[in-house]
């Protein structure tokens, strides 16, 4: 088998495994990836064993190692910046919607509260109003009104929390990647 045939086979097998895993995840069948991924690896390794030309020599390995190192450097720097920026949204108040609550006393002596959501970073006013709701009797708040109240509070931070979550994921990925790199570095440092 020639090198190009091996690469084509690997690509086809990779695409098939990815499609099967994607389909199984969507269908909720978690047994398929457990079988498909090892099977794909076995097929690729079998193809590799039948390659009669040189797949990777010392120059190729040196290029790959240097490329991996450069990639790591770039990913760590760019990822750190992205993680910090995204995580900063969690504590960034001006970018979250402005939620105002106004208490007022009704004619019968009960208290009502009006909660309004305004566009992020804008002055509260009729032009910037996104939506509002009124809880007629604050002390006798029913479940629906309580849910609406919680939704408003949650809404104020939801967008920023999702960005913060993305930042945390990137940060954790970087830490994991560095840990793996460190482990391999120590291993090869001892070996050679």
């Amino acid at each position, binding site marked *: 088998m020639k090198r190009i045939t091996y690469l084509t086979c690997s690509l086809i097998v990779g695409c098939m495994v990815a499609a099967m895993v994607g389909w199984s995840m969507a269908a909720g069948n978690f047994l398929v990836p457990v079988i498909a991924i090892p099977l794909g690896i076995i097929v690729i390794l079998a193809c590799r064993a039948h390659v009669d*030309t*040189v797949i990777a*020599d*010392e*120059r*190729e390995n040196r290029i790959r190692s240097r490329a991996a190192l450069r990639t790591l450097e770039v990913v760590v720097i760019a990822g750190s910046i992205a993680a910090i920026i995204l995580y900063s949204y969690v504590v960034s108040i001006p970018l979250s919607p402005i939620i105002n609550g106004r208490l007022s006393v009704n004619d019968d002596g009960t208290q009502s509260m009006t909660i309004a959501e305004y566009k992020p970073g804008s002055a509260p006013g009729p032009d910037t109003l996104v939506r509002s709701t009124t809880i007629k009797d604050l002390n006798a708040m029913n479940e629906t009104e309580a849910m609406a109240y919680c939704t408003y509070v949650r809404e104020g931070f939801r967008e920023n929390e999702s960005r913060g979550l993305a930042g945390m994921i990137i940060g954790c990925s970087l830490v994991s990647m560095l840990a793996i790199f460190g482990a391999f570095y120590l291993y090869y440092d001892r070996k050679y």
Partner: protein
Amino acid sequence: MKNRIRVLRAEHEMTQEQLAELVGVTRNTIISIEKDKYCPSLKLGFRIARIFNVDINNVFTYEDDKDGPLSDNE
């Protein structure tokens, strides 16, 4: 690092592909070595010299580059 691989190949009427196959590397590696773009390992250097039945000094000649003798700019 200068080398005489192209000359030695011509003397032995050997193609880059054949040499690559004999020393166990890709043709691209032989091309890069001949162009002085890639500095091979000692192991590969000795293997190439053995293929041509010459001493390694007859294949490769070390020259101090502009960055100094310890530079690693291959």
